[in-house]
C-alpha cells in the first residue's frame, strides 16, 4: 500500500465525498465510481468461506464423522457444519460468477449487477488503509515492544499525520492514554498487560 498518497490533514479526512448510498434494493444500479466493484470481494470472501468449509469437512472425515461404539464420533457434528458452509458459500460464489458470465456473453456493454456496484471507492479505500495499515503494524509491534510503547507511537502518529495536531497536543494524548490505562489495569484491577524491554528496564 502506497502510504505517500494518503491525505495529510483532518480537512482531507473530512472532505471525502459521501459514500454511494448503500441501497437495499438490488436492482438499483449506481454508476460505478473509481474503485473496487463488488464482484471481486464477493467472489473472494465466498471463496475463502468455501475453502474453510472444505477444510472442516476434510478434518471431520479425518477424525471420523460416523458412529463409534460409544456414540457419535468427534467429526459427526462438524462434518455437517462444514458441508453447509461449503454449500451456502458455494451458492453465493456460483450466483456471483454466473451473473458475471451471463452479462459477459450477452450484448457488449452489459454489466452484471455486482460489477456495477461500487464496493469501495478509491478515496474511501485510502482512508480505510490509513487505519488498517498502522493498526496491523501496531499489533505486530506490540508482540515485542509491549502495549504501552506501541500505543504511544500509534496515537502520536495518527494525531500528527491525520489530525494535524502539534507536538504538545499529540504528546499529551499519546502519553496520557497509556498512563491512564496503566493506572486502571495494572494498579486498580491488577490485570497485567504486555510489556516490552523498556518497561523491563524501568523495573516493571
Amino acid at each position, binding site marked *: 500500500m502506497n502510504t505517500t498518497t494518503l491525505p495529510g490533514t*483532518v480537512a482531507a*479526512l*473530512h*472532505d*471525502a*465525498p*459521501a*459514500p454511494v448510498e448503500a441501497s*437495499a434494493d438490488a436492482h438499483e444500479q449506481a454508476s460505478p465510481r473509481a474503485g473496487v466493484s463488488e464482484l471481486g*470481494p*464477493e467472489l473472494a*470472501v*465466498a471463496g475463502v*468461506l468455501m475453502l*474453510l*468449509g472444505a477444510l*472442516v469437512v476434510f*478434518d*471431520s472425515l479425518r*477424525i471420523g464423522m460416523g*458412529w463409534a461404539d460409544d*456414540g*457419535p*464420533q468427534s*467429526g*459427526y*457434528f462438524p462434518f455437517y*457444519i*462444514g458441508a*453447509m*458452509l461449503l454449500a*451456502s*458459500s458455494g451458492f*453465493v460464489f456460483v450466483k456471483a460468477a454466473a451473473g458475471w458470465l*451471463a452479462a459477459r456473453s450477452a450484448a457488449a456493454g452489459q454489466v*452484471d449487477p455486482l460489477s456495477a456496484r461500487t*464496493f*469501495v471507492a478509491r478515496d*474511501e*479505500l485510502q*482512508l*480505510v488503509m490509513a*487505519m*488498517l495499515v498502522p493498526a496491523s503494524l*501496531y499489533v505486530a509491534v*506490540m*508482540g515485542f515492544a509491549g*502495549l504501552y510503547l506501541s*500505543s504511544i507511537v500509534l496515537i502520536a502518529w*495518527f*494525531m500528527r499525520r*491525520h*489530525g494535524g495536531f502539534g507536538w504538545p497536543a499529540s504528546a499529551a*494524548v499519546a502519553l496520557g*492514554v*497509556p498512563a491512564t*490505562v496503566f493506572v486502571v*489495569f495494572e494498579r486498580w*484491577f491488577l490485570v497485567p*498487560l504486555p510489556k516490552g524491554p523498556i518497561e523491563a528496564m524501568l523495573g516493571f
Partner: protein
Amino acid sequence: MEELSLLMNGFAVAMSPQNVMFMLVGITLGVLIGVLPGLGGANGIAILLPLTFSMNPTSAIIMLSCIYWGALFGGAITSILFNIPGEPWSVATTFDGYPMAQQGRAAQALTAAFTSSFVGALFAVMVITFLAPVLAKFALKFGPAEFFSVYLLTFCSFVGMSKEPPAKVIAAMMLGFALACVGLDTVTGQLRLTFGSTELLNGFDFLIAVIGLFGIGEILLTMEEGLAFKGKSARITLGTVWETWKALPAYWMTFLRSTAIGCWMGITPGGATPASFMAYGVARRMNKDPDSFGKGHVAGVVAPETAAHAAGTSALLPMLTLGVPGSPTAAVLLGGLLIWGLQPGPMLFVEQKDFVWGLIASMYLGNVVGLLVVLSTVPWWAAILRIPFSIIAPVIIVICAIGAYTVNSSMFDVIMMMVFGVFGYLFKKLKYPLAPLVLALVLGKGAESSFRQAMLLSEGSLSIFWSNGLVGGVSTLAVVMLLWPLWGALKSRMPGAGNPPRAA
C-alpha cells in the same frame, strides 16, 4: 404472588449502596460506549468483562447490564444530534430525530427518545418478571432434544427474519459453528481443526470475535465515511422535559405497538435493530399523515426507540431461562455468566434466586437511573463527539487491543482480533450478518452437545425431534422459519413466472 416477593428481595439486593454505585458507573460507561463510534454494547461489554472476573457475580452482572442500558440510551444521542447512529438499532431514530434537531427541537427529540426507551424497557422488564419464572419452570422438563430444537428455532429464525440474503445468513452462521468446533472435543478428547497449532488448542474465544468484528470492523467502516462531525448542540431544561412529557401520552398506541414488536423480536432472536425498523414502518403506516414522517415527527422517534429498548431488554429473557441469548450483547452477558461459574438456563431460577431476582430488580432501577443520567448529562456527551476522529480512532484501537489481550493474556488473540476486524468490515459491506455468526460461536458447543445427546437417545434418528408435541412443534416452527425466504421468493416470482430476475 411468589414472583413479587422474590422481586422485592431482588430490590433489596440491587439497592445496596455498592450495587447502586456499580449501576451508576455502568450507565455512564454505557452511554460513553454508545456515543463513541467503534464501541458498542456487545464489544464494549466484551472488553470490560475481564475486569469483572474478580467481582461477585451479582454486582458484575448489574454493572454489565447497566452498560447495556447505557449503550441503548447513548445510541439515540448521536442519532439525533449528529445524524450518526452510534449503534445499529438507532439508525431508524435518525430518520425523524435529526430533522427535529435541525429545526431546533433537539431537546424535545432527545427527551422523547429517552422517555420512549425507558417505557419500552420497563414493559419488557415486566414481561421478563412474569414470564421468565413460568418459562423456566416449563424448561426444567426439557431434554436434549427439546434444547436442540430451541437452538434450531433460534438459528432458523435468523434465516427467516434477516434482511440479508439467506445463503449469506447461513454461511455466516456456519462459520460461527465451525469456529466453535475448533479445539479439544470435550466428549472424546479428540483434537479438531487445530492442525498441530498449540494456539488453537483452546479454540476461538467469542469475545475476541466480538471485539474484532464489531470494534475494529466498525472503526474501518467509520474511517471510510470520513466522518464529518457537524452536530447540533443541545441543552435539556426541565421545562422542555415537562412540555415533551405532556405531549407524549397522545402516542400511547405507538408505544403499545412498538413495545409489542420489540418484545416479540427480542425474545425470538430478531434483535433490536430489525425491531426498531419494523416499529418505525408500522408507526408510519398506521399514522393518518404518513408523509410527515422523515421531516421531524415525534412518533418517528418514539416508535424505533421504544421497540429497540423493548427488544434489547427482552433479549435477556431466553438468555436467562433457556441459556439461548436473543442478541449478540445478550450472548456476551451469557459468556460472562459462564465465566463467573453460573450455568444459564432454568436451573438458575432454582439455585441462584438472589442472582436472578437481583438482576431483574436492577433492570427496573437501572433504567430509572439511566433516564435521569442521560437527561441531565446530554451536553457533555455531545461535547465528546466534538473530539476529532483522529484522536478517537487510535484510542479505540488501543482499547480494543487491551480488551482482546486481557481475555486470555495472549498476543495471539490480539492478532486474531485484527483478522476478525478485517472480516467484520468485509462481511458488513457484503451483507453477511454478524449476529448469527457471534451467536453460533457462543452456542456452538451447547448446540453440538445437545444434538449429540439427542442422537445418542435415538440412536442416530432425526425422528426424535418430532417425538412429542412440544419438541415437534418447536422443530416444525424452526423448519417453517428456515423455508420462509423460499416462500417469499416463490410468491414474488408467481406473477411473472419464467422471468429471470436480472431482467428487472
